């Protein structure tokens, strides 16, 4: 089981989806996209599968979290396929708006 670090980029093997780890998990676990483990930073990767999973879009700029472990991912390249850990789908995190200070 991998332990991901903050800032690490993970890529789906089955679609265009790429995410960045914005909060690390408290435990070792494996992120999957459409059920297939994602590739880690620097890992050689060949795409497998169709890249299309109806109704399971991962959206650009959205955050996905696993409340059990605290893992939080930010989608930096959108695409198809639901993100999950230990077969638990990650939940879309709702933003907490902050007034613009810049």
């Amino acid at each position, binding site marked *: 089981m991998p332990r991901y670090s903050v*800032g690490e980029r993970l890529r789906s093997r089955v679609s265009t989806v790429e995410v960045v780890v*914005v909060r690390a998990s408290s435990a070792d676990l494996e992120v999957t996209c459409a059920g297939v483990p994602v590739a880690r930073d620097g890992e050689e990767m060949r795409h497998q599968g169709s890249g299309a999973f109806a109704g399971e879009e991962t959206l650009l700029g959205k955050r996905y979290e696993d409340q059990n472990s605290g893992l939080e991912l930010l989608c930096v390249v959108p695409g198809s396929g639901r993100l999950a850990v230990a077969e638990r789908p990650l939940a879309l995190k709702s933003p907490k708006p*902050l*007034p*613009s*200070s810049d």
Partner: protein
Amino acid sequence: MNISMLLTMAATGAPDAVAVEHRARRSTYAQLARLSAGGAGIVSREGADSVLFLGVNSTALPVALFAAAAAGVPFVPLNYRLSAEQVRALAGRFQRPLTITDAAEVLDGPGPTYGLQEWVDACSAAEPLASADVDPESIAVLLFTSGTTAEPKAAVLRHRHLVSYVLSTVEFGSAGPDEANLVSVPPYHIAAVANLLTNIYAGRRLVYLDSFSPGAWLDLARASGATHAMLVPTMLARIADHLAERGEPTPGLRSVSYGGARMPQAVLEQVLAAFPDTGFVNAYGLTETSSTIALLGPDDHRAAVASDAPEVRARLGSVGRPVPGVTIAVFDAQGRLCPPGVRGELRVKGPQVAGEYLGGGALLDKDGWFHTRDQAYLDADGYLFVEGRLDDTIIRGGENIAPAEIEETLLAHPQVADAAVVGMADDEWGQRILAYVVPHSTAQPDAEELRSWVRTRLRSSKTPDEVIFRTDLPRTETGKILRRLLHLDTVDSSSGSVS
């Protein structure tokens, strides 16, 4: 993760929306991404170790910043008001800088030079750099401190600091399609760097004003349909004065944030009255903390204005509460945590806090705190009050006195336009209090009258020992008082009177 990813995401999400406009030139996110990739190609082929930017706000600025980021070299905006000699000294710290400036004659060092427009044109024609993996540990931006006391130091901001700041304070693509941010802070200030990154990430159009005057700002605010703006207190004060003098209508801005220097209470009340429909945000931060670490939002401003409770009303002078991811605390001189209401040094930690200077190593203490050297206290509800630099504290007769409190009191006097208070060595008291006062143009206040004004509002130990009238005060461009220059003036004038 590095800051060029923020632009890539914006260009993926809304390629055809306008990202930046300067005068007649508008560039979309896709165009900005293409220009930046071309710029990165130029930086890489030139073998440059840094990108120096000596110029005004314009399209060349974001292209330079993102080109440097994608090529993995530091972006270094320089103050265009420095002398040629000072610019050469700063540029001389780099082996092979690529410099973007319309004042190339001031440089004589190695490395290629581009004019601002020439740079944008060259980026447009250049072969883009294939996206490279830039280490989040590498330096994204170097900002020279104003160097009011010594040789300028270069504050280091790494990619991970800036990205942490953006991700913890801004939701991607959260700006409405009509939103635009009017930018008038100079490019070499941390506020300009933060402004650029957060507005690109939010998807809010940037409207650049290259040279600030209250009239030009108001004209552009109306013409561009700006909904947001960031200003330093002295700019806001001049805009409010201009509106009052001309009786012109107030532009319909939704949000104005201010920061970069202390906002005097009297000015804030004038500004709030001049912009009744605008939400105000007081943002407090330092170069070393990747910009904002605490903010007082529009709701806090409104609650303070409407409240009769003194502790709530006092929050108009507060910088609010910390932003997500940032932890703040106030420590006394013995390193003990101060309870609410007790003054001490503000310390801060979090992933956006860099606290590092080039060649000086990390300045964080063993517990991860960055020592801001700002005097501050927290109220019972966690609102932060910052009173100025600890180094500016006046110690008179063993009592610690913050100049800000006396300055605020002087500024509340109807005949006072500006005021600065400093300590001067004194044999009897250790330090005595000097007040430099700029009267309103038609006023002729009396020094004794002003001393008595302060004495009745504060107490006798905080009464200026001497009041010196001036026609203006030396300030940085963000409005911070250059206290050292006040001292120099005094030394000059007193030695003059002796001879």
